[in-house]
Structure formats: C-alpha cells, structure tokens
C-alpha cells in the first residue's frame, strides 16, 4: 500500500461537524462546532474561558499567548493570568466525544427508516391504545420556555393534547431499528411502551413535600394545600394523602409489575464535575526573563524541574517555555491533572518531533546517520570522543575490515598485473634479440648478449 493511501485514510478518519449533514438531525453540527477549539479545530481539551467570553483548549491558547497578547477571535487584550478553567464545558466535551460515534451511527440508521410506512400490527395496537386511553399524560410543555420545567410539569389531558405526537415517528420505525440495533434507545422506549406499566396511573413527586401522588390528585388538590400555610397546621385530608396505587394485573404473567421511581442517574462526567475544584495546592510555574538569566542559572532551573540540560541555550529556553505551558495547563486548568513524569514524557515527545522536523529528510546512509546523531559539537571540546567511539564500535570495525580486504585486493591486483607485464616484456625482448642477432657481426655478438641479459635481469628485479 502506498503512502498516499495512508494519508487519505488519515484524512478520512478526521471528524468534521459536517458529518451530521446527512443524518436525521443536521442541526447537531452546530453543537459539534461549538464544542471545538477555534485554534486546533479539535474537540475542546481542558477548556479555558477568556474575559471576552471565548473558549479554547488550555494548551492552544497558552501557546498562542506566548507569541501574541490578544484573543485570537476578537483581538481583545489577553494575558495568561486572565484565563479561567471551564470544568463544565470540559465534561460536556468529553462526554460528547465518547457519545459522538454512537450518535452518528444511530442517526444514520434512523435516516434509513424514516420514510418507511407503518405496517407493523404491534405498533398499530400501541397507537390505538395510547389514543383511546383516558388517563392524563404528563409531558413537559415545550412552549413554556421561561418556566421552571424541573419543578412542575404541565399536565395535558386528552382534549388539549396535540393529536400528532413526536413519538409517532419513533414507533413507526421501532420494529426495524430493533432488528438492526437491539441495544438502541428507541428499542428500549418501544419495549417500555409495550410493558404493562403503561396502563398504570402516573405517579409524580410533589416538589414541596417530596411525596408521591397520582398526577390528578397532585394537580387538583395537593399542590394548593402544600402551598397554603393552613396545610402546614391542619391534618392532611384523605384526598391528599399519599396513595399506594394497585396496578392492574398483567394479563400474561398475572404478576404485579413494580413501578420504578425515576431516580436521577449520576454519570462519571457529572461526578467529576461536582468534585472539580481549582487546584490551589500546586503553584503556577513562572515565566523567566531569559535576557537576564545566565546559562548556569538556566541549567539549574531545568535540573530543579528534572528536565534535561543538553543542547544549546535556545533549545533550553524552548524546553522551559514548553514545559511551563504544559505545567500550567495541567495543574492550573485541568480537572484531572497527570503527574510530572507524564509531563516530562510529553515534553520529550514534543522535543523529538520538533527537532526531527528541523532536519531536512534526504535519502542515503550519511544523512540518516546525521539525523540520528546530530554532530553539533563535533569540533569543540564538549564532543565526547570516547563515547562516540564506543557507540560506533561496530561501524568502525566494519570499516577497518573493509579497508583491510580492499587493501589485500589491491595488492593482489598489482602483483598479478606486474607478473603479466614481466611475461610480456621477456617475450618481447626475446623476439627482438633473435631478430637483431641475424644482422649483428659475430665478434660483437657476445657483448650484445651480455647487455641483453643484464637488461633483462634488471627489468626482472624491478
């Protein structure tokens, strides 16, 4: 698989608010967008609020404020000390991030069944039963936006109830959604609708005394009595006394089904929010005026924080600045801070990414070697020669071995070459001697022969 494919896969895996455009509720993209940081475009992580009312990830805004002292959105003056933690938004974003994939999947499934006609007999029965029921249905009045919906529910009887309820669409697609996703919320709602508990008179808690009463009793008499001062003095009337309602027998099982009181379900995110407090025990890591700080002081500061002191002055400054940002974001803003060792690990990963990107990527052994081992101090006294020799012992041995073998080869080649030259010379000389002898007088022959032999000896010696 090519690298292109992996990049495309990565792009495909990125979440985007537009994912909701093709679902039943496209308006959810607004919520998705609102829970994202305007700097990193990801979901808010450890969100902080600016005085101008904008929210960003703690790390994002802190990094920006290291460069500019203004809000990125409205350009209002802004300093790090002005940032306030937003624990509630943090938990909402975290909760939503977990929920998002399921929500998208569920909404896409619903979209598929939205246009299906209602043909399911069981659904039709429920529809008929709900329509013919004489009992009052307790529902929150959506029009009454300014009222306190938590305390009192507006009761709508059969007469003033809207004829077409939002639940109709849910019941219409219930059977198919049950087949496809048995754990989905709609299925459970559907099953609850089929259960005999639906036939029972609705109980509701009195917001004043906290006791359970049938809805009609609560609406007609009890609330007035509870609210009036006389009700506190005189004994309670029979009509307003708490009633234990005998539920109708289940025609199938002939057992009494229990009516569940809707308790408030507290989630982990909610609990975390309740327990969240600003961490007063840990002090803020201060900024340093590096222009008036010596190299020794800088090293001392880094070592006191258990940070590495290697590298140039600028690298150390960058290291401190980034750690200061991580520290303050973690201990000042975060709802569940991590320990220092984790912060140091994050710093190390940031530094490795940062340094690796500075070196241009080239092919070939030497450039790779340099990327792994930057030789910045190669010509200075700080360069550890022994350490270098030990680290690259294998490489040196291999190089020496290669050098020796190449030397042997070259020696062999030269000796062979010299031998072949000798043979050529001797044959050439012999031929020339024999050709010359015929033309030379006999008295000069001996002397010439001696010369030739000495020459040939000399050449062989060389």
């Amino acid at each position, binding site marked *: 698989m*090519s690298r292109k494919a992996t*990049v495309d896969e990565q792009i*495909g895996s*990125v979440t985007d608010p*537009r994912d909701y455009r093709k679902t039943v509720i496209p308006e959810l993209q607004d919520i998705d967008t609102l829970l994202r940081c305007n*700097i*990193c475009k990801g979901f808010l992580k450890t969100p902080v609020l600016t005085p101008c009312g904008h929210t960003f990830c703690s790390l*994002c805004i802190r990094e920006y404020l290291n460069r500019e002292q203004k809000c990125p959105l409205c350009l209002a003056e802004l300093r790090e000390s002005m940032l306030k933690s937003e624990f509630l938004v943090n938990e909402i974003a975290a909760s939503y991030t977990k929920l998002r994939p399921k929500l998208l999947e569920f909404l896409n499934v619903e979209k598929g069944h939205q246009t299906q006609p209602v043909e399911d007999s069981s659904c039709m029965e429920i529809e008929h039963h709900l329509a013919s029921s004489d009992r009052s249905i307790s529902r929150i009045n959506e029009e009454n936006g300014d009222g306190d919906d938590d305390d009192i529910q507006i009761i709508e009887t059969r007469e003033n109830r809207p004829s077409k309820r939002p639940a109709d669409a849910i019941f219409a697609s219930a059977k198919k959604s049950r087949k496809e996703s048995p754990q989905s919320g709609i299925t459970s709602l559907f099953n609850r609708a089929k259960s005999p508990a639906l036939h029972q008179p609705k109980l509701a808690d009195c917001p004043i005394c906290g006791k359970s009463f049938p809805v009609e009793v609560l609406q007609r008499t009890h609330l007035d009595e509870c609210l009036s001062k006389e009700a506190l003095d005189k004994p309670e009337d029979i009509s307003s006394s708490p009633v234990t309602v005998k539920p109708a027998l289940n025609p199938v099982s002939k057992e009494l089904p229990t009516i569940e009181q809707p308790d408030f379900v507290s989630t982990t995110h909610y609990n975390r929010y309740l327990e969240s407090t600003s961490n007063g025990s840990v002090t803020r890591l201060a900024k340093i005026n590096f222009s008036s700080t010596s190299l020794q002081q800088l090293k001392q500061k880094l070592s006191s924080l258990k940070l590495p002191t290697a590298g140039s002055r600028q690298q150390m400054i960058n290291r401190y600045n980034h750690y200061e940002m991580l520290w303050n974001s973690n201990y000042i803003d975060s709802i569940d801070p991590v320990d220092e060792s984790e912060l140091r690990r994050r710093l190390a990963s940031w530094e490795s990414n*940062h340094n690796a*990107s500075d070196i241009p990527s080239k092919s070939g052994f030497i450039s790779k070697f340099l990327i792994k081992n930057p030789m910045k101090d190669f010509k200075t006294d700080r360069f550890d020669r022994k350490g270098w020799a030990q680290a690259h012992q294998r490489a040196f041995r291999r190089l020496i071995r290669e050098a020796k073998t190449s030397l042997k080869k070259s020696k062999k080649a030269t000796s062979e070459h010299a031998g072949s030259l000798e043979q050529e010379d001797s044959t050439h000389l012999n031929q020339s001697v024999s050709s010359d002898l015929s033309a030379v007088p006999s008295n000069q022959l001996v002397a010439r022969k001696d010369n030739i032999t000495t020459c040939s000896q000399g050449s062989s010696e060389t």
Partner: protein
Amino acid sequence: MSRAKRVMKELQGIKDDPEAKVDLQLVNENDIHLLKGSFLGPPGTPYENGKFLVDIEVPMEYPFKPPKMKFDTKVYHPNVSSVTGAICLDILKNAWSPVITLKSALISLQALLQSPEPNDPQDAEVAQHFIRNRESFNSTAAFWTKTYAPMDSVSSGETSIDQAALYGIDRTLLDQFVSQGFAEAKVVEVLRRLGIKSMDANDNESANKILEELLR
C-alpha cells in the same frame, strides 16, 4: 503534532464541503507541509474564467505562524508580484490569527483579486498602471488571465504571447518605434522602465525620452 492534525482537518473540511469555492491538495503524499491551493477568478473582474494556483508551505509552528503562500499562476495585480508571485496580504503577515484556516486564506486571496489595494502594492509598476488607466489595466489583467490561467489548464507558449497586450502597452505606440527599426522586446523593455503605456501624438518630450533610452 498540532500542525499535522490541523492540516488534516482542513483538508477533510474542504473535501466534505460541496459548496467550497476553493480547492486544496497535497503536493507530495509524504509531505503534509507542502500544499497546492486553487480557486476560480471572481466573477465581474478581469480574472473571471481563470483558475489560479497557489503554492502553500505550512510552517512547523502552524497555526501559530501563517502559511507561506505565493501564486504559482502569473497574475497581473497590484498586490501580487508579476515576476515571483509573492503576495502582499495582511492576514498572511502581521494580521494572522490561528483562527484563520487555509480555506479562509484562499478565499481572502480570491477577495483580493476582486478588490486590489494599489496604495500598498507588491508590484509598483502594475499599481501605477491600475491608478493611471483602469481600463487598460483591466484589459491587460484579462489578457494575463486568458494566457496564464485558462480553465482547461493548457496555457499557450511564451512565443505566441503579444508583448504589448501582456504589459498593457498601446499597440500603436509600440509599432511607432518598431517601424523605426528598433526591436520589439527592446521597445517594450524601455516603455516598461519609463512607465509609459500610451502617449499623445503631439507629446514630443516623451517621444524624445523614449528615443534617448532606445539609442543608449
């Protein structure tokens, strides 16, 4: 790395948006910091029906530092260098904010083509032309668009380009000196240097100045 994540999100955002007026592509699949942006010339301008390519280099510190952008397509515009394609736009320099995306930066470039700023020019010669003779500027810009930024991405060769139209020089003025035996390229170069696009018939002073430069 925040840069990689952010660029990925932006690429996805443009890919998923069917109404996007701009396009963004990776130049090399191994490099996320080199991109090629493109957009169509704004309607009702000399750049209409042109497709403009922009080279984008995303720095390591992105989105805290602005991306480096320059036109890959030759553009005749006061705020764009006609030679290098360098852009003079505040949001790509001192007015950059991490809230700005590559998509919004490309849309800003599109808006820049629609409303040039000749008082803060990148190319002084083009800016002067824009101020002095808007009609002539528009015809030159339209000619450049037709020549260098055609929609079908097949541009004609340099040899077939009309030099007079390319630099917004009056054809009759050019022919006047070419007929006297001067090379067309030389005349164009002198007229550009002197900043003369057109000339009255009885403007002897300008004519003498041009001749002086041609004979030098």
